[in-house]
């Protein structure tokens, strides 16, 4: 655990208490079975926004608390532990596009509403099932004062509830990033149901017209956004790994076979010690990457480091927790497999481990 400020410790404890009491795993199951049209647990997100969490990375003058990325990461880690189906991460990433971007009009229009949780935003960058920001084919052509966008974005997370999409598209001068309201003519959704029961959709832009104010920045902005997406996703993954590990440890301490508590078997003890070690290393990278965002230090390499470590670690943990539970882990009535279903989605979002090792090496000049 990083050394936290008093405010950060309070925030983390508040998030932990709230998820434990108000948003346990049973709440996720209920959400999954009800499958609301907005694609997230609206009551939970409303309460989270009331606690100020939607504005953690938004400046105070736009109604946020400007509390920083480590603080946001602490909350996401806690809410991920119980699989809370909230668009907190997606909305914070959309907000950061506006904060980092150059459009004052877009900031004024959207940031106060994102900070209060009145609306949800999300990133619409990738166009295929694998993360590949070098292959953006959606086009943005000048039309009058504004732009016309055409193309299809794939597997956009929280698309069903989003009022604002942050869209990457090719302009005549290279990649541009645009703020696109969801209610514009020509914008359509096609649901893509994935294992995690969360909101994903392909977003089609058919000659969608936006104003000049919708342009937020170029490829630099896109890179900064993607690094933020990688790092907050890794923070969520840390929560998944920690909690599924903890649940499994508790299970091994009470399950009896051959007249013995499973936790007393050395074969299982060493596997758990290995997982514990790996999760501690994962925590190091996730916290260091969040801190790197707050201090603007070496962010690209730290983002790739954190995401690759998070991918590899959660991959192993999510497999092992099912095996260590035995047959009960295979039943839908029990909840441990919810974690692997969410884990794989996040592993594939914003870059697999091979993507990030390649990127890390390139950044380091080899």
């Amino acid at each position: 655990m990083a050394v936290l400020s008093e405010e950060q410790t309070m925030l983390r404890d508040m998030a932990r208490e709230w998820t434990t009491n108000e948003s346990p795993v049973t709440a996720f199951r209920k959400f999954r079975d009800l499958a609301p049209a907005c694609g997230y647990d609206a009551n939970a997100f409303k309460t989270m926004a009331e606690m100020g969490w939607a504005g953690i990375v938004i400046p105070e003058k736009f109604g946020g608390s400007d509390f920083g990325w480590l603080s946001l990461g602490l909350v996401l880690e806690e809410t991920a532990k119980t699989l809370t189906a909230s668009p907190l991460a997606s909305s914070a990433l959309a907000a950061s596009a506006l904060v980092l971007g150059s459009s004052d009009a877009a900031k004024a229009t959207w940031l106060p509403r994102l900070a209060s949780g009145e609306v949800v935003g999300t990133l619409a960058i990738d166009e295929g099932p694998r993360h590949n920001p070098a292959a953006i084919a959606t086009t943005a052509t000048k039309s009058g004062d504004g732009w016309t966008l055409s193309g299809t974005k794939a597997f956009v997370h929280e698309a069903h509830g989003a009022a604002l999409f942050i869209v990457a598209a090719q302009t005549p001068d290279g990649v541009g990033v645009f703020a696109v309201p969801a209610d514009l003519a020509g914008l359509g959704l096609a649901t893509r149901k994935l294992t995690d029961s969360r909101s994903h959709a392909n977003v089609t832009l058919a000659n969608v017209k936006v104003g000049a104010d919708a342009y937020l920045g170029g490829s630099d902005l896109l890179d900064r956004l993607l690094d933020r997406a990688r790092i907050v996703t890794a923070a969520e993954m840390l929560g998944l790994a920690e909690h599924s590990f903890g649940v499994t440890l508790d299970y091994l301490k009470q399950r009896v076979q051959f007249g013995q508590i499973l936790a007393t078997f050395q074969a299982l003890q060493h596997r758990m010690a290995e997982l514990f070690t790996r999760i501690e290393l994962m925590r190091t990278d996730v916290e260091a990457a969040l801190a790197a965002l707050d201090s603007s230090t070496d962010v690209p390499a730290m983002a790739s480091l954190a995401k690759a470590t998070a991918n590899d670690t959660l991959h192993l943990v999510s497999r092992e927790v099912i095996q260590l539970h035995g047959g009960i882990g295979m039943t839908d009535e029990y909840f441990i497999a919810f974690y692997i279903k969410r884990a794989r989605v996040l592993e594939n979002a914003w870059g697999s481990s091979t993507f990030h090792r390649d990127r890390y090496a390139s950044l380091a000049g080899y």
Partner: protein
Amino acid sequence: MATAAKEQPDALEAFRSEVQDWLAANFPASLKGKGGAMTSPYGADSAGPEGTAWRKALGGKGWGTPTWPKAYGGGGLSKAHAAILNQEMARIGAWNPIGGMGILMFGPTLLEYGSEEQKLRHMPAICTADIRWCQGYSEPGAGSDLASLQTFAEDKGDHYIVNGQKTWTSGGQWADWCFALVRTDKSKKHEGITFLLIDMKSPGVSVKPIQMISGMSPFCETFFDNVKVPKENRVGEEGQGWTIGKRLLQHERTNISGGGGRMAAAMAQGLVATAKEALGTDAQGRIADPELRARIAKFEMDWRTFLLTTQRITQESKAAGGVSEVSSILKTVGTKLVQERSELLIEITGLQGLGWEGEGFSDAELAATRGWLSGKATTIYGGSTEIQNNVIAKRILGMLDHQ
């Protein structure tokens, strides 16, 4: 407050110029960059008469162990003063000639558990490295299960008669004294163990070097045949040896993970450069073999994670005012990575990376071969990886003792 805050930096700066003057007068320029002498069993003395003089000068001033108490031969410096000493030494390429087991493991333990007489007798020669110490812990039948050790010290009134065999005695053939765990009570396991200091020149002590797979003999078998040890050489009470010995192992584990860390940090830059040279690069400057490139990247990332974790644990320990329980993972992670790096280097350089001796290999290549082989020991000694995993499962995860 303002005055105090102003005075302190002045005092530190005065100390800095004192250090500069003293180093100018005592550190021979010819020794600059010869700190590698410390890896020799003879330490600073292997750098010739000037090395010995430098050891006696710095050790005599207590600055080889700058923060240890002055009364026992240390420097008695605050951490801030010691940091200045380190900075000034680094600035002129001076190195600390005081090392070995006395400093790394035994000294801190004796400071904690030794009697006043023992500290006054043994610490000064540890601080000057005039006396070399070796560790008598492991036995042929007591490795990971150290507490099953059998070397017996029979009570003869004012002395003990010690019989038994120790093994993996690092530097036993060069040591003047041995700190050893012996059994004084056969009816109890852990509580029957006692911590003794044994003069290696005592009649009945003999050592036999063990040749290792690396070709080197850094360890010995040590035999005790009716060795007389005065009771004044017992540290703590009878039966307290396990507690004292375990404390000492904490110093050892810290040093193994940290030592491995320093070694690999010094080497880390070389891995990519070596790979570019041996494998070539493509038009974008990438290492030409994509699979090896990916594995090099994975190693470099894992290594960075390890270094960040040591930093994190240090910060957390400071903030919490105690050792973080997570520190138990550092030894297993650090040693595994150092071994992985050696294996990766061989894969990159091919047969050139397996040179044993003779023509056609650089000194660095030959050292890497020996380091690869001797490095296999790091996951075995100081508590093997399996023992560390037992400790994590039992102490941190609260899984019950295995059968």
